[in-house]
């Protein structure tokens, strides 16, 4: 394994560079995935059947909390990558840890939100609108959940193996993923919630 020390840790081997490019392409596919969900959402948003419309069920408070949590976590994961580049293992781990905790809190609020929707009669089966709403949110939420497990794994590996080209690479890629989820959330926030409440 050739290591090129003139490059940042996450880019320092050939395989690392491949991984990062590959992940960017994967994010391209993810954009299409969420793009399709959004397109379907806009198509079905008025098809509420006998169920409620968005304006009737959206609540601003949990959504704002979620937004705040996720935005902050995007910032902390950025700090984690910064710390990783400075080869500061402790700080890297701490920031990843904070990120995951924020993610967990986000997920908690989102689960509360879902339970609430089902409670007030906006379940998955209610109408085309509720189905696409919960699917779009749920796909994002599932990504966050997956990210929590993934991040925990990386955390454990950094703890055990230190900041190597591999763990550095993994945490960098994880940060890309996490930023991406944040961007998706911003779209959800603006076009699903804000637009829906207006």
């Amino acid at each position, binding site marked *: 394994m050739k290591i090129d020390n003139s490059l940042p840790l996450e880019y320092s081997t050939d395989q690392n560079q491949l991984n990062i490019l590959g992940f960017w392409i994967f994010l391209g596919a993810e954009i299409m995935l969420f793009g399709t969900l959004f*397109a379907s959402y*806009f*198509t079905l*948003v*008025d098809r509420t059947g006998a169920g409620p419309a968005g304006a009737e069920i959206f609540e601003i408070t949990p959504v704002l909390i979620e937004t705040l949590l996720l935005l902050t976590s995007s910032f902390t994961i950025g700090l984690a990558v910064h710390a990783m580049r400075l080869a500061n293992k402790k700080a890297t781990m701490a920031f990843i840890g904070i990120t995951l905790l924020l993610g967990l809190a986000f997920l908690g609020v989102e689960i509360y939100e879902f339970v609430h929707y089902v409670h007030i009669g906006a379940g998955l089966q209610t109408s085309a609108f509720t189905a696409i709403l919960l699917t779009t949110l749920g796909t994002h939420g599932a990504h966050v959940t997956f990210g929590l497990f993934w991040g925990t794994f990386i955390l454990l590996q950094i703890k055990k193996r230190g900041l190597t080209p591999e763990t550095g690479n993994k945490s960098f890629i994880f940060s890309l993923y996490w930023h991406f989820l944040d961007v998706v959330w911003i779209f959800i926030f603006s076009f699903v919630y804000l637009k829906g409440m207006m």
Partner: protein
Amino acid sequence: MKLKWALLAVFFTITTVLTGCEPLLVLDPKGPQAERQANDIMLSIGIMSFIVIAVLAILTYMLIKYRASKQSEDYEPPHIEGNPIVEAICVGIPVIIVIFLSIVSVKSNYIVEATPQGYEDQEPLVIYASSSNWKWHFSYPEEDIETVNYLYIPTDRPLEFKLYSYGPITSFWIPQLGGQKYAMADMVTTLHLAAEVPGEYMGRNANFSGEGFAENAFNVKAVPPAEFDEWVEEVKETASPLTEEKFNELLEPGHLGQSTYTGTHLEFSPAPEHNHGSSEQDEHSTDEHHESGHSEHDDEHSQH
């Protein structure tokens, strides 16, 4: 190579013999819309044959002239990069053809999506054609009668079919009067036809809709207007009324013969609300509709 030509020759004789006896339905139009479509088809077949023949000719020339067996052992083919002029021609000719066909295509679109030309000043006969597994129900709201699996229409009068479905997507098609259009559960589509020649025509569902699809056909009888009025009168005198109960019975999956009723199911089971693709809307409002992006019109029917 000879074998190939021989086979092609055989093939063409066979097809001409096969098709010589009777004209193909689509190319034997009995109404203005089908005629427009048949003309477009013949025109495009002509242009397309020209392209195919040109390609075949160039190919044959290349193969005869440059095959290895005709060349000396030590002939070394040259290295040739593309030539801008040659390539410009290869782009230019197809572009011209495509532009020409596009113009034809766009014109025809507006023609087949409107009241047939020459009939604009007549009041169209509106018929609601709805499909259920695996039948067709034809409601004549003005005449207040309904038929199952057969259609009676007057000649020389514009027909406006309002299509929808009580089940899977189907497609209403009478080849000799004009092309098909889908019938769907959550919106009404409109198909403009007219018949100019009295006669019996084949009509069917063209879109696969499950087990009984193959038999999902209906008979179309085009008669002069006076005869049509007589038929309506006769139905009104002889047919039994269509009750909701009876209609629900008709909707049960299966095949039925032809039958006739007075009254229509529209009274107790109206067509879906969303209306789409009718001539009035399209001629007058498509522009704003598309420029305004996501008008409510758009939402009914997904991204364009």
